[in-house]
């Protein structure tokens, strides 16, 4: 089987990889078509009138499948790898042809409502059936071959192909973010008008973008290293200036961001910000302390409802301002965190997850109940929650609420960082690694666990309070279990226990779907797929914490012990 000599039997068996991988690709492309993603995505162009996002989706899946095929068969020789990826490419597109023929004879729409004539037209590139089928088959082969070739290539050529294509793709996907942002910058607006059309990049814009970015990357790879070396060789004080300058630029950017982005993007940013707050809180519970809490939305609800009850003019019980209600809301969150923590102290792993899941539902159902309706408003919720304000400045529009959330995020990031390196942070870490041993080290499990729950709940309540004042009203339906799941997902995708990871995760899982409105319907599917892909390819997350990186991408022990001997002899 594993012989390199190309006997006929050997070749057949090594083509199995291409066939197998190609079948996965076939299932993938048919699935993407039948669930309507291709059709929904083809409303939007990556390059205007040339290639839509729907087609890109199919091409990308074909590309990745063929890449897998090449990767898995490279041990059998280069030509076989290329052949395998070619086969998998043909299979991916061939399955779509089968789908088209099947659709011509059988009415698939009774089961798959998206198997419409529009879909078939899209798959045939708008051509009549004979040309379309040939074209489709051909494209599949080309994608497969191209992918295999790219895998085999190294160095310049690979870079010069992937970088421009990738940057055009990213620019096309993020056009809703880039176009209005660039448009706000005087001279850049002309550029943006030229690169982007109302839907997708213009052809000339795409070419110029691809060429200029590849020239840039070429220059960087020539000069970049010496530049980096230059910065490294700078004296201490000069390097400090560099870091300060970078830091100041970052602060400046954060401060002016909403003005650059405009209303819609600022709104997206505030949503992402609220999720970052939630994520940082849950990161303490799940990432630091290792307690899987699926009822996290409860504290978000408690924060929001406490703020609503204390400030709403509709209820009229109290007339607190946002600022005086905020600490009470956070305290309520902390209190309920401890309250949840006590009964689940002895639970671990999945049992804890189920118990906390129940807690989240209890809170939602309580809020919905008729019993508490006079105080909590039942299904109608509570309205007329005043906005937060400082003096005469009111945090009303997304661009202003952004600052409120930014302040909250900075505070929470600061606290998280401090906690991580503190005594309690180390206790959390020990508890996460091994509860029994942590106890044998002299760690008080009860207080350590309760502190984790309380801190996480407090952050969540803070987020809830801002949420209530942002919307001006609270409804029980805003606090369903999906929020908890979203937050857990973004922590996993970002990297458990990592603060930048939470931010990256929030932007990827909350921000991107807001920008790609076509996603909305497929959000859960994409979440699921993203989680599976992450677990396969990068289980430690997009921006992992140092400890997890260490575990999953083990450095060779030799190197580490060398480091340590050097370290000790130096000290």
């Amino acid at each position: 089987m594993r012989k390199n000599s190309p006997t006929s039997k050997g070749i057949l068996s090594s083509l199995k990889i291409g066939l197998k991988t190609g079948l996965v690709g076939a299932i993938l492309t048919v699935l993407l078509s039948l669930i309507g993603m291709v059709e929904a995505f083809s409303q939007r162009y990556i390059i205007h009138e040339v290639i839509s996002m729907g087609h890109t989706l199919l091409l990308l899946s074909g590309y990745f499948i063929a890449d897998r095929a090449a990767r898995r068969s490279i041990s059998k020789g280069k030509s076989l790898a290329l052949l395998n990826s070619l086969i998998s490419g043909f299979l991916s597109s061939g399955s779509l042809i089968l789908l088209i023929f099947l659709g011509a004879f059988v009415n698939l729409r009774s089961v798959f409502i998206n198997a419409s004539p529009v879909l078939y037209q899209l798959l045939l590139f708008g051509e009549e059936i004979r040309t379309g089928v040939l074209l489709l088959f051909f494209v599949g082969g080309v994608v497969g071959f191209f992918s295999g070739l790219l895998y085999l290539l190294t160095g310049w050529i690979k870079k010069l192909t992937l970088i421009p294509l990738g940057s055009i793709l990213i620019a096309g996907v993020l056009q809703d973010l880039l176009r209005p942002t660039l448009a706000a910058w005087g001279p850049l607006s002309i550029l943006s008008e030229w690169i982007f059309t109302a839907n997708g990049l213009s052809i000339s814009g795409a070419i110029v973008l691809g060429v200029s970015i590849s020239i840039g990357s070429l220059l960087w790879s020539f000069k970049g290293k010496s530049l980096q070396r230059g910065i490294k060789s700078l004296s201490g004080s000069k390097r400090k200036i560099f870091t300060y300058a970078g830091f100041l630029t970052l602060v400046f950017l954060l401060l002016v961001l909403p003005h650059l982005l405009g209303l819609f993007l600022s709104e997206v940013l505030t949503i992402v910000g609220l999720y970052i707050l939630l994520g940082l809180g849950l990161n303490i519970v799940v990432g630091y302390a290792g307690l899987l809490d699926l009822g996290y939305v409860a504290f978000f609800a408690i924060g929001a409802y406490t703020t609503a009850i204390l400030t709403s003019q509709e209820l009229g019980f109290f007339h607190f301002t946002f600022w005086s209600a905020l600490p009470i809301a956070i305290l309520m969150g902390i209190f309920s965190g401890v309250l949840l923590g006590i009964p689940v102290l002895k639970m671990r792993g999945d049992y804890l997850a189920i118990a906390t899941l129940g807690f989240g539902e209890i809170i939602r159902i309580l809020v919905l109940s008729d019993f508490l309706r006079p105080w909590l408003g039942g299904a109608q919720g509570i309205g007329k929650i005043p906005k937060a304000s400082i003096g005469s400045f009111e945090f009303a529009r997304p661009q202003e609420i952004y600052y409120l959330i930014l302040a909250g995020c900075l505070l929470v990031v600061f606290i998280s960082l401090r906690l991580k390196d503190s005594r309690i942070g180390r206790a959390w870490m020990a508890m996460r690694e091994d509860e029994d041993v942590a106890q044998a080290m002299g760690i008080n499990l009860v207080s350590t666990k309760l502190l984790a729950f309380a801190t996480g709940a407090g952050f969540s309540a803070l987020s809830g309070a801002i949420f209530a004042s942002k919307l001006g009203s609270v409804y029980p339906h805003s606090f369903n279990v999906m929020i908890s799941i979203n937050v857990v997902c973004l922590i996993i995708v970002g990297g458990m226990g990592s603060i930048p990871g939470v931010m990256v995760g929030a932007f990827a899982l909350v921000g991107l779907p807001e920008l790609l409105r076509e996603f909305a319907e497929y959000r859960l599917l994409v979440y699921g797929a993203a989680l599976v892909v992450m677990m396969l390819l990068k289980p430690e997350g997009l921006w992992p914490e140092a400890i997890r990186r260490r575990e999953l991408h083990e450095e060779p022990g030799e190197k580490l012990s060398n480091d340590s001997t050097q370290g000790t002899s130096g000290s």
Partner: protein
Amino acid sequence: MAFLEIEEIHAYYGHIHALKGVSLYVEKGEIVTLIGANGAGKSTMLKTTSGLLSPRHGSIRFEGEELTRYRPHEIVAKGVVQVPEGRRVFGRLTVRENLEMGAFALSDPKLIEANLERVFNLFPRLKERQKQVAGTLSGGEQQMLATGRALMANPRVLLMDEPSMGLAPVLVDNIFNTIRQLHAQGTTILLVEQNARKALEVASRGYVLQSGVMVLTDTAQNLQRNEMVRKAYLGET
């Protein structure tokens, strides 16, 4: 009054009566070993002493103070420290981080530094590997680390749970040499072992536990000569 005194302990796992009125004592500076077969209740004995398991009846006194009313972390703070069975180092932390975690109950940085020095003197290997991730250490090194981690807490009594388990014979010798060294430095040790031969060589006295009942106690020398012990635990016929 002995240094550590365990009297008439009854402990349960659910309905299972694991310890049926067991007593033992350890004098200051002494090595006492507790031998017995699998499931005799040796580890339960240590767990009960360190507070991880609460006994239903009986008392455990350390320097005359009743331990059973304290929680595990408080017992560690009093100086009764356990080296857990099967080593159980924090696999994703470095050697040094593991050791620092062992000193969690201490707050004086100078004392922690001194303890670290002491552990590194005892186990130069750990000093060499202090930046290595503990999970990648060999079994013997992990046992060193687990022992070192317990020493970081400034133990007045060290409860060692089967330190030789799963180690190659050479490493077993190393571990018992370490135990001798610790003894020479004045550490009081309660040693639970299946390797009765080795354990009785280092200990001054021994206890034999059988199905939750203490069946025999004597000096280590006498136990080594005891007919029953020789047959059942030393593998002689």
